[in-house]
């Protein structure tokens, strides 16, 4: 899995590619959490994510609990398979997901 930070005006776009699993979650966490803690508006681009396991969900949960305003964290380009995971775990109600 790789992450890439792209500045877009006052927001930050975090482009994730590959699999977010138990091995890569730490990398994902290290890229995402500092941005959220800095109070930045973060858009996570999931276009390149093939799958996400519970380790990835844990990172998103922590980020979601850290963010000041819910609208400051947004997920975009979520594939159907990953959306299914969010749906089945109840995360889609809690996360800010844009198709």
């Amino acid at each position, binding site marked *: 899995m790789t992450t890439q930070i792209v500045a877009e005006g006052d927001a930050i776009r975090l482009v994730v590619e590959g699999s977010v699993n138990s091995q890569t979650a730490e990398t994902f966490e290290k890229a995402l959490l500092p941005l959220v803690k800095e109070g930045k508006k973060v858009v996570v681009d999931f276009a390149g994510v093939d799958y996400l396991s519970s380790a990835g969900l844990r990172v998103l949960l922590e980020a*979601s609990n850290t963010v000041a305003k819910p609208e400051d964290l947004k997920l975009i380009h979520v594939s159907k398979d990953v959306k299914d995971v969010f749906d089945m775990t109840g995360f889609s109600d809690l996360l800010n997901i844009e198709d």
Partner: protein
Amino acid sequence: MNWLEMIVKLIGAIAVIDLMAVLLAGTHSFSNLANGKNRTVRHVLLGVTGGLFGIYATMAGYAMPSGAQISIRDVGALIGGALGGPIGGLIAGFMAAFFRLFYPFVTAGLNGTHVESFSSAILTGTTIPCAISTLIIGVASGFLHEKFKKAKHRGAWGCLMGFVAEVFHLTLAFAYLCIPIESIGRVGGAAYAWGALKELIIPFLLSNAFAFGILIYVFDKMRDYSKTETHAKQVEGELNVATSIQNSMLPQIFPDFPGRKEFEIFASMAPAKEVGGDFYDFFFVDEDHFVFLIADVSGKGVPAALFMVIAKTLIKNNLQSGLPIGEALNRTNQQLLEGDEQRMFVTAWVGLLKLSTGELSYVNCGHNPPLLSRKGLPFAFVKDRSGFVLAGSKKTQYKVFETKLNPGDRLFLYTDGITEAMNKDNAQYGEERLLNFATSYPEGNKPAEVIADLSKDVKAFVGEAVQSDVMTMLSLHFNGSYEMTKLPVKDGTFDSLSAFLEESCAKRGVPMKEANAAAVILDEIYSNIAKYSKANEVTFGVFAEDGLLSLRFVYGGELFDITKAKEPDVHAPLEERGVGGLGLYMVKKMSDSLTYEVKRGLNVVTVDKRYPKGEKHE
């Protein structure tokens, strides 16, 4: 006098008494008592029965114009005595004699005539000698009881006893009639007595002799019959027990191996009227080696069933001890020969399937050739023979044949109960009919359906004829193998497993969606193993055939049923949530089944997921 009337009456009485004897002897409660252990009860019962017969015989007798009675009453006394001993004889003799003594009053009462005086009624005719002789015959025959019991040809002896008894009876009557009795105006003397008796001597002797002879003959026949019947029932009961014990020795629960995707198996044994020596068996030698077999012991009945038990046990023990299949059967052959005094033998077809590769080793010990169908191809007989039957010859060394089963291959084993099933025209079902059935049979049907449908076909062929032999069959479908890898639990292993899974899915055409779901499942379960189990090694297997993707994890460490892990509350507000149990919850949601077993001290987790066939792996 009316000869015809006399003969008809006597024959009627004989018929009724003998018929009653048959009915009583054939009645279970009576024959249980009459043949029972309690001697006194038995003797009294026979005595009373004889007495009642005697009373009936007196009434069914014929009164001569001279006042002499001709009847087979003494048969009643003989029944009581000869069968019931002195007690029975006394009872029967007394009952019949007493009734005879007062019979003149009975007839007078029945006819509405007046009996002038007690003494004249008693003294007239032969009442007194008849009553006395009946009593004496009863008691005397009672003392012959022990001898009579052990006698052969009791019917003939009975005839003779009847004859002798009546000679005595007639002599007594003759002597009595010689005595002049003034009060009833009897002159007496030999001439008078002869005149009174001469006509009834022959019918009297013959009727009693035959009546008792026939009665004893029939009585014995009935008793033998009821004994044979009881014995037959016992034997039948024992055979039923043997059949059910035999059945309970065969694996019965299908599917027998949950979590096993490599093959499907079904077998059945439909017993014929009598217990036979057919059997099938299947079992694991170890995690990867599966044995299945079918066999037929020569002969039928309990000896065959016992031999079957020995053969089945030996084959299983020898294979599970780790011997190569050929050696295992060589040893079984020697062991069976050691104790085979009955010269029985066993035909058997034994297969050893290596599940991880599909390699099949088999030995055919003189058994019917199984049917094999390669995926998409018609069935054909596998005619290889490894050697002679088991328990046939000490010199036999079995040759092992090898082949490889591929996904979709089907095997069908059977015994000659199928091919030799006969219809009422004595035509056999035969190999050709079996092959035709198999060839036209739908490929997708499960082993259990194959067996049910073939059973129906054979039964339809047999029709109303009796199923002569046991029909035993076994059907095995090979679905494919798990691709396995074994790695230590450490950093980097997940990436290796992940790559292994991806490659496996790609190779077997699992669609992307399911391949990704499998990746999540692998991650969740492997993380769990690595975090909690303390296992050193994990064996990971991927099975993907025919629309079914199955992942298997075998690992040591602590035994813990991961399916029992607590489920998270997925509807709680995000802030309140932990992520504990979420991974396993996802596995359950994303798969069709998650099973946990402990096998040989190891945790075995199997996750199955169906996928649509024919889609491309992009």
